């Protein structure tokens, strides 16, 4: 009993001990913060990686692709009832150009997906910007577009004033600052224009139909700017010829009416063409951008996203076909398509978001030369079946374990073995079926490795705390030699005396750990506010987000805390071990003579 009592009393009255406590506080604080952040990052990546490709993905080996995918999906639904949803997927490579930005051309990966199925096998729907809810489609309602772009322009406006209010003292990249404000301003103008146009279009939907009729009729009549020019010339001629004033007056009013009609015509033309661009155009040629594609959005150095695209934005995709014709020279010439942007998507995995664009499955199938081919003689006879690159499966279980998923993968693979025999076009295709974790193994293991390395480094740093406890307890044991003698003289055992100091070391560590955990908890919970504050007050942005993450993860896992506290107390005991043994070995007489 006296061990606890003495240890508590020593704790209360030893000034130097607080130094050890401070050391433990710092180490525990660092540990909690680093482990929490890394675990948060890993969880984010895992979540994103999982959302990317559903639970299980089946891919064909080689570039040739998978035939009879719809038939196989039906087969899997029958044979593997654990599968809830499945969707075919095409991946190809190409180049992106943006109309209005002639210098821009960037390599992209082009994903052909079916909507809404793809959103049911992956988290694609959650990452969309415009289509936040409802049934996803390649042809979203104009009302949704208006609401989203309006919101977005409000946000961009706020961002702009926030950035303008931010002061930079000293030689702090004034040019960059100005450039950024200008870019945000441009984005804002684009968005406001888009909203105004979309609004106008939506409000005058009925009028628009009549406008269109008017337009067609006027165009048929041949009304145009040339007519106005001709009228002007005729009027000037008439004036020169001294035609009677009442006739000139009549010509003038006629010309005026004509001019009005032309202006009106041009307005109608603009509005209709805009509306056509976003509403009436071929819904096959729609594209969703990865939010991270350069030149269509950017991130300020405070980590805010600014969108530079507006609905209807034209882009050009050059697709390098990987389909069956890819063995001849035609593989060298890309298929080119005009697309209009309808949305953007943020998966949370940086390399995906900065390189991917998504287009309708069937569209890419054609551009990629994977569509079905029919016989010349009999257009009903399929010579080569349509293909996809992969099939993505989602299972019914909500949180399937890796084990379960691997079991399902094996059964899908087996189903394919049975299936391909019945379809000559599929007979030669061998496939691999992988769980999302297997697919993302490399990405995950890199981050995991970094986490372990950080923990190792911090553990080494934390040796300082152990040494601090060791030194302080050593000094304490020396100071308290007489106390040790007394304890032994009144019958305390050697282990009991050692216990006093071990307990003391553990207690120092426990107090330090408690404070460190509290500080670490408060720091991690507020880490985003702290980062924002550093950025706005001092322009200090040590963390380049890239498109990695919008925010720092601010979750703390209970097991992290338990683990760190346990390690700290263990370290305290280890630091106390040597001094405690020294105390235990002291002869009472020697100890008492020490005065």
């Amino acid at each position, binding site marked *: 009993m006296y061990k606890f009592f*003495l240890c508590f009393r*020593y704790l209360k009255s030893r000034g130097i001990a607080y130094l050890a406590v401070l050391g433990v506080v710092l180490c525990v604080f660092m540990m909690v913060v680093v482990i929490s952040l890394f675990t948060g990052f890993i969880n984010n990546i895992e979540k994103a990686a999982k959302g990317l490709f559903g639970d299980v993905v089946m891919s064909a080996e080689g570039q040739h692709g998978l035939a009879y995918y719809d038939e196989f999906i039906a087969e899997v639904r029958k044979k593997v009832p654990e599968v809830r949803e499945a969707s075919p997927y095409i991946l190809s490579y190409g180049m992106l150009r943006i109309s209005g930005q002639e210098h821009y051309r960037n390599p992209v990966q082009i994903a052909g997906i079916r909507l809404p199925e793809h959103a049911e096998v992956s988290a694609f729907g959650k990452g969309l910007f415009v289509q936040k809810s409802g049934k996803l489609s390649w042809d979203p309602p104009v009302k949704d577009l208006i609401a989203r772009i309006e919101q977005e322009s409000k946000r961009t406006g706020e961002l702009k004033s926030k950035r303008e209010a931010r002061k930079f003292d000293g030689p702090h990249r004034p040019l960059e600052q100005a450039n950024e404000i200008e870019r945000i301003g441009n984005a804002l103008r684009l968005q406001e224009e888009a909203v105004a146009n979309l609004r106008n279009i939506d409000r005058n939907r009925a009028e628009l139909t009549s406008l269109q009729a008017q337009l067609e009729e006027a165009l048929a009549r041949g009304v145009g700017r040339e007519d106005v020019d001709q009228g002007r010339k005729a009027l000037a001629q008439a004036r020169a010829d001294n035609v009677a004033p009442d006739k000139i007056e009549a010509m003038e009013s006629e010309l005026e009416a004509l001019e009005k009609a032309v202006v009106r015509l041009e307005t109608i033309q603009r509005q209709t063409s805009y509306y056509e661009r976003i509403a009436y155009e071929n819904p096959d040629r729609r594209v969703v951008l990865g939010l991270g594609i350069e030149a269509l959005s950017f991130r300020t150095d405070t980590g805010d996203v600014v969108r530079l695209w507006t609905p209807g934005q034209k882009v050009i995709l050059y697709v390098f076909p990987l389909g069956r014709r890819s063995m001849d020279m035609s593989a060298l010439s890309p298929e080119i398509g005009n697309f209009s942007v309808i949305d953007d998507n943020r998966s949370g995995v940086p390399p995906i978001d900065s390189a991917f664009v998504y287009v309708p499955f069937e569209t890419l199938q054609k551009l990629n030369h994977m569509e079905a081919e029919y016989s010349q003689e009999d257009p009903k006879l399929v010579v080569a079946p349509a293909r996809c690159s992969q099939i993505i499966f989602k299972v019914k279980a909500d949180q399937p374990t890796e084990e379960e998923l691997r079991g399902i993968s094996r059964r899908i693979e087996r189903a394919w073995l049975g299936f391909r025999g019945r379809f000559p076009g599929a007979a030669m295709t061998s496939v691999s079926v992988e769980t999302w974790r297997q697919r993302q193994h490399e990405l995950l293991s890199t981050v995991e490795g970094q986490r372990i390395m950080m923990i190792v480094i911090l553990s080494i740093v934390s040796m300082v705390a152990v040494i601090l406890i060791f030194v302080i307890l050593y000094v304490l044991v020396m100071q308290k030699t007489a106390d040790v003698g007394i304890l032994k003289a009144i*019958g305390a055992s050697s282990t009991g005396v050692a216990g006093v100091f071990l307990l003391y070391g553990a207690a120092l560590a426990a107090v330090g750990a408690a404070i460190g955990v509290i500080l670490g908890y408060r720091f991690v919970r507020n880490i985003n506010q702290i980062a924002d504050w550093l950025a706005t007050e001092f322009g200090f942005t040590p963390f380049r987000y890239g498109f990695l993450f919008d925010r720092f993860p601010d979750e703390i896992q209970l097991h992290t805390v338990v683990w760190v506290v346990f390690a700290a107390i263990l370290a305290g005991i280890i630091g106390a071990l040597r001094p405690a043994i020294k105390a235990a070995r002291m002869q009472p*007489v020697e100890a008492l003579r020490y005065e």
Partner: protein
Amino acid sequence: MSKPPAILVEGVHKTYRLGRQDLHVLRGVDCTIGDGEFVAIVGASGSGKSTLLHLIGLLDRADEGGITLDDRNVMGLSAGACNRMRRHEIGFVFQFYHLFSELNVLDNAMLPAMVDTPLLNWFSRRKKLRAKAAGILDDVGLGDRLKHRPRELSGGERQRVAIARALMNDPSILLADEPTGNLDSKTGAKIMKLLKRCNANGQTILMVTHDSDIAAQADRILHLVDGLMMEPL
């Protein structure tokens, strides 16, 4: 002599080794102290009085000879048994008090009881032990100083706390190494009164002292000369 002696020392030798030089301090000490006796040991400085007391108090081991306490030979006892003897049978009072400066008077006096009580039993016994310690401190005249720290007390008061501590576990033998050595004669007299009261309560007392006046108050005086015990004629 119906009762066995409280302390029986037979032919005890103790040699300190200082580098190459041997210091043969005790050279076959014999003495018998009866149960309930109050005996004083006197002798020149360096004659080995403290050494002998430490051997009897189990704070050190004799090189040779036998020591019997309350009819138990303690020479071959295990460490655990030694600790138990120290806790229950022996109370020790030191010249330099040796109190815990972090603990108040009451806690200092209670310490032997704390050492003797396992954690689980502490909560049930705490009240009783505290009352007992307070009672002993009241007996030694410190009933109103329970919450004071040792450094707030005078030398005599500190020695009384040390005596209270030595009495806490009701030992049958009380060993005192110059309990008045650092005190003036008036305070020393008070301490002696206290020891005599303990003796009257049946405790065997073995005291080392320099002061012949103090020694004279004991039942019997033993002289330690040249590592041997001489009884005065």
